[in-house]
């Protein structure tokens, strides 16, 4: 949803390989070559702001079909399902169904949807493309096969540059942007938030802080009141590329430790509860490493808000 406005042809390079795969799948489906449920059920995944909604809308324009949003709202499941059924009744019989905001967990709406719509669509041989947050986490019950989810690649620095231009930022990257966007992986949602912040003349550090707060909120965790204070130790860990405060402190020089203590940066969370929390946020990957786009944001934020700490921690 976040990247809905980014319909730029210049920022599409990163999805070319993915689209090539999907074009093939759609062609097969059009020729009735897809018959079993697992091949009819396709999925793409990306984290928050990864361009899922944009991609589904783009494909709907290209191949037609019906786009349904499964995001929770105040209406009853009955009302939501009836509305979706009305949309489907007005669509061609052979169609592609695009499902946006497919949650990780089951609720009344998804349960009804599975029973009333999804099973029927698959049984009728319609192609279903769903956008997931995480590759292997989907709300459907055991009767629906787990799809082979394809990752939506992040933007390259060139892609980020193209998005900037859409927002009227035509200059080349400044120092902060070089730091933020020059890594291999940049989320479109981040670039959008960044450009909007710049256009509003918001402080860069505030833009990044708000972006991280938004991420925290959408993951279902309560945002602590002293959010910036909570971010500092995480940013320090991100600078040292670890999630283990003990290991990090052991490798720091006295000068670096002083920089931390002078800025009242302490590490109250550690161990299993901390790892579970970071994994829940999607900041820690299954291999225990940092999720690169978030690590870059944290580092840039620290460089902007506490430059002395940042330079101390990143110096060798």
């Amino acid at each position, binding site marked *: 949803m976040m990247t809905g406005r980014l319909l730029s042809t210049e920022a599409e390079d990163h999805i070319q390989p993915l689209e090539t795969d999907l074009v093939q799948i759609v062609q097969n489906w059009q020729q009735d070559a897809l018959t079993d449920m697992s091949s009819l059920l396709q999925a793409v995944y990306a984290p928050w702001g990864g361009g899922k909604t944009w991609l589904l809308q783009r494909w709907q324009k290209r191949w037609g079909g019906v786009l349904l949003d499964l995001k929770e709202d105040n209406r009853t499941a009955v009302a939501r399902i*009836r509305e979706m059924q009305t949309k489907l009744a007005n669509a061609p019989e052979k169609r592609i169904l695009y499902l946006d905001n497919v949650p990780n967990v*089951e609720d009344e709406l998804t*349960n009804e949807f599975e029973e009333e719509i999804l099973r029927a669509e698959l049984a009728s041989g319609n192609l279903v493309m769903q956008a997931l947050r995480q590759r292997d986490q989907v709300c459907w019950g055991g009767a629906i096969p787990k799809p082979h989810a394809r990752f939506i690649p992040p933007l390259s620095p060139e892609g980020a540059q193209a998005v900037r231009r859409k927002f009227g930022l035509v200059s080349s990257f400044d120092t902060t942007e070089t730091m933020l966007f020059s890594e291999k992986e940049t989320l479109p949602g981040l670039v959008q938030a960044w450009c909007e912040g710049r256009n509003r003349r918001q402080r860069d550090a505030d833009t990044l802080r708000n972006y991280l707060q938004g991420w925290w909120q959408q993951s279902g965790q309560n945002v602590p009141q002293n959010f910036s204070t909570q971010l500092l130790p995480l940013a320090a860990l991100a600078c040292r590329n670890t999630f283990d405060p003990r290991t990090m402190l052991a490798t720091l020089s006295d000068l670096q430790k002083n920089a931390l203590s002078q800025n009242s940066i302490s590490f109250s969370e550690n*161990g*299993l509860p901390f790892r579970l929390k970071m994994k829940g946020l999607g900041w820690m990957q299954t291999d225990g490493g940092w999720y690169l786009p978030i690590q870059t944001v944290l580092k840039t934020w620290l460089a902007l808000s506490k430059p002395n700490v940042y330079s101390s921690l990143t110096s060798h």
Partner: protein
Amino acid sequence: MSNLREEAKPHQTFIYLAPQENLPSRAGLTVLVNQIRVDKIRKSDGTNLTAIPVNLWSASASGWFRLANLLLGSQNLTLLASILTVVGGIYKLFNDEQERRKQQQKEFDTALAEFEQRATQQPEQIANEYLDLLAKNKKSGISSPQQEQLKRKFKDFARQFPQGHIWARGLRLRLTEDLKFLQQDSEKQSAGTEQSSRRSELIAWLEDAQKETQILSEAQFQSLTRLLIYNHAQSQDLSTLLQDALQVFRALGVESQPFIIKRMNQAIEENAKDARRQIQNDRLTPTAPLFPKEIFESIKKAWFDDGKAAGHYLLESLTKTQPELRKALFEWEANDPAPPNFILPPFGLWGNDPVYETPSEVLKLFGETNPRWKHPFGPRKAEDDPRLPLKAGKSDLRPAHGLFWDEHPLWTTVLSLEPCFVTAPPGSGVSAMLRMGRHIRRFWGRKPALSLGLSLSGKAEMSTLWHSAERALSEALRRDLVEDPYWLLSANAFTQEWVISFFEHVYGSIWRLSSRLQEAGLPEEETDLIVNALHAAAGRKAYQGAAQFPELLSMLRQRLGEAARYRLRDDRFEVFIWAEVKDADFTSAWLDLLAESGLLQLGVAKIFSPAKALPTHLSGALTDYELAWTGEQLTAMLHHRFKQTGQNALLDEMSRDIPQLVQEARRSPARLIELGNRKIQKLARLEKSKQGGQQP
């Protein structure tokens, strides 16, 4: 002196002398009497008086005599007499007034006592009685303290009967009657001035009654006034009018419905005419709809979307006179039913929080927000775990997404319309299936039905069975009323009387039910209306005991089915009887009783028991099933719990232990939960001990 002479009795003449100086005290002191007057003064023996013997008194005593002489012995006496007469008169008046006041106070006390008595016997008449008493006493002259006393008494009684403002019911009915007359006037098309004067009188009376009793809230009062003075010529906004009508209906109860519908019909027709006129001015379209879209949209927003039960009730009444609206209503119901009210725990099937004990180090693993709700295992008993049902949109306030694993092969059968007998060993998830069945098969559940939950333990007895069935029905109906009271409000008077008398039979008093409804989450704006409806139908004794249970159940099946018609999946609204027989040894006896009582025939029976098999003579009435678990099913259930609690990362940590956990559970989900709790506890302790010596 002359007066004194004339009035004094001859034989009692005293002459008081006051000499200028003190006389010596001496015996035989006399005063010579003037000879000229001697013939007039005779002694009692007839001889003339020549001298008067003198008694000499003290100076102070003589001072008093001198004063007395001054007062009595001159014209002052007349003045004094006059004064005394006036004072006496005043005193008498005062005395009479005192008497009158005493009498009035006595009458007031009697009236107050009568008021108290009537208020206790007929609480719905409190406001009415108060106003009457006030008016009567004002006429006869009421003192400020008495007025205050009366007001205090009234407020005390109003406080005693707060549910649904029952104390104001009589007065509201009186007001409704007046509204009816006003409406009849307008139907008869009485002369404009006559009608308008009646309206003004009513408004004046209403203002007075409102000032004295506050029977309406300020908003309700304003709404009623606006509705009374409604005049289309003044182009009152239709949306405001719809809101006003809803407010007034909620305030005055179902009796006010004819007046409100009449008013709304008038307003809708006039708005529609205006709209059509406008369309015709723009472009002549004879096929233009009778009601423009905007009117329907206003009605939908005010009464269907936001009006809750009261709005739906009015809408249903309005459609009787507006067939075009009826079509729209069916469409709205089918497409966008308003969410039900949220039943506050513990009045639903579950309590406030998951009930289980666990050390703090375990809770630390689940984050800072609602950690007790995020444990993938937690309570061993289903009744202690409010996390089981699926989350029903944003209006569902539980921080849970639903832990119940609904893919067990037996589950579809359990939810179906097939009567069945399920044999299940302890710990195999019977409670979870029963509760979830009742939850999904409730009136506002995903598969609407009327569900009665019976727990049958100990020796099988018919009285116990009926008692249990009546209690189950009252609990189910109470929940159904809280979620959506419209089904009862819109029922015919006959059905209402039956339902209310059933509640009276179970609860003893309607007051108990109304307060429980509020506690259980019936919204405030609906409570007045419901309590009024309950009260109106109370005391009829339609339902008198178990013998009428089947009749009541069949009535309810029909009424609830009609109310849920747009949500039905299988086009059938059934009564479900969810029975758990606790003891294997008594199962056969309980089943016989269920059959004998006729309960098995009254609805779809779902009977769970630890007994090995269904008695053969009942095999025609029930299908026999067994609730058993395979290792794969337990694994799937366990993964489902981790997914639904958002603990996928923890599952990764524990993944190697899962097969062992499932094996040790020995086909029992309850045992699996217990083992899962222990496993996580062990993990947390290990983590604690690791962290203990190694703080960063």
